[in-house]
């Protein structure tokens, strides 16, 4: 699903966020990326989401080389990927339902179909009863679950999450991870950046540790 070949990302000013990174995530895998802040976790996800482009090397997502995705085609490309953010990135001027429906509206789904899918997505994060509320009235954990519902409402094959539990206490973190786990069980590929190693170890997933933009360590409990 994801292949990185010798990927380098250099920001203006000369510091290397990623240098010569090789990485492969198979379809249906759930992989964690760990490392200190500044190790390149976010940069990796940003390259996959085409928020940035690599300075060197190839990033191939679902058999598409991101280098060949033209600027005009970026929106369509992003619609194939579900994204979850540390700060949720919800729109606070509209209720939960509208937030979750947004990717469908962007994709041109009819209102009627959208309603059904939004409720299905909210049901999966156990927030069906809060669809009419404003995100502001929700707790941090609930807001993150709304963010997750929005990421999965279009049923993407790939979900990327940048520190999704960064602002949550251990119990809520575990709950969020369990939700991710359930998606993984139905075939969604997940790439999650996190620094919560003890939590990751409890889930028993492959873990890639980055340090200063390089692959430092790879832990695969299955091997």
């Amino acid at each position, binding site marked *: 699903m994801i292949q990185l070949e010798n990927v380098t990302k250099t920001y203006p000013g000369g510091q290397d966020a990623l240098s010569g990174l090789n990485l492969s995530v198979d379809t249906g895998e759930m992989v964690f990326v760990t490392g200190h802040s500044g190790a390149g976790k976010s940069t990796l996800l940003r390259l996959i989401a085409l928020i940035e482009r690599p300075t060197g090397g190839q990033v191939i997502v679902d058999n598409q080389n991101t280098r060949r995705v033209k600027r005009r085609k970026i*929106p369509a490309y992003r619609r194939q990927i579900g994204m979850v953010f540390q700060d949720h990135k919800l729109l606070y001027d509209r209720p939960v339902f509208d937030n979750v429906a947004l*990717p469908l509206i962007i*994709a041109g789904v009819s209102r009627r179909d959208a309603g059904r899918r939004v409720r299905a997505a909210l049901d999966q994060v156990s927030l069906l009863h809060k669809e009419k509320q404003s995100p502001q009235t929700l707790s941090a954990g609930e807001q993150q679950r709304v963010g997750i519902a929005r990421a999965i409402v279009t049923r993407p094959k790939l979900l990327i999450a940048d520190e999704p539990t960064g602002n949550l206490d251990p119990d809520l973190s575990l709950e969020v991870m369990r939700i991710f786990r359930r998606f993984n069980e139905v075939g969604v590929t997940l790439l999650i950046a996190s620094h919560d190693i003890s939590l990751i170890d409890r889930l028993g997933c492959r873990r890639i540790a980055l340090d200063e933009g390089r692959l430092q360590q790879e832990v695969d409990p299955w091997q």
Partner: protein
Amino acid sequence: MAMTRNADAVAPVRSSGPLSTWITRHLSTAIGSLGRLVRQPFASLMIILVIAVTLAMPAAINLIVKNARSVSGSWDNALDFSVFLKQAVSVSEAEALARLIRQRADIDSVKFVSANDALVEFKRQSGFAEALDQLPDNPLPHTLVVRPSAGNTSASLILLQEEIGNLPESDYVQVDTEWVQRFHAILDIVRQAIAIGAALLGVAIVVIIGNTIRLDIENRREEIEVTKLIGATNAFVRRPFLWTGFWYGLFGGLMALALVYYGLFMLEGPVAKLSGLYQSNIAVVSLDLKEGAAIIGIGVFLGLFASWFTAARHMRRIEPR
């Protein structure tokens, strides 16, 4: 890739018919944008009022010119002409001729001005009384002031003037249309000035709407970033702003129309009074359907142009960070 969810769950994102989707999308965006304007009634009203005044100004001046033209046009039709008779024609002959002409169907009235009356009048008006007193005899001829009837066309008027001018008693027919022509030339200049002024005001409207949309975009920067992050195209994020521009233009145009009609309503009384004083039939010429539609159309066009221009410029710059 293997998915084990039920059939419904793995169905790809499918949109209904492209046209109906397109219409539904626009409709909901249009209503959404309208809702935003309504939620800030004071700010929206201010902008709409500025647009309305800016549109109404050239429209009103144009209407004034149109009215001036129509009033002077009616003078043009019912234009009196003066027939100066030969010196040899006596008062009784002249009076007989006046009676004769008066009987014609294409003549409304004929006023006889004797040479003496004319001289008295001329002395009074010119201030040359003493100089004129030095003259051995009256140099002025008898004059008939002819008012053609309303049924005359401009062509039949010319024929009538020629016919009367060819009478043995008449020396010279004077048609005093020169001032009307000058007046029309002035109106043409005013009309040109309006066109230039209107173009400048149009630029002002574009700037006003553009600036408002720019602020709106800045206020919604985060929302735009988030929607782009989850796959919205530039066209998608631009759409609500285009509709905002459309609504500003539409309501601005409608209010401009209302202002012009209010102005006409206020003038109706005074014009009727003036009309009564002149015992004539001066009616205010209002906007016709085409002009009304043009005001609204220009408003909408400028609104759309301004918002499109602004949104296209700013939207590309806002990218997820």
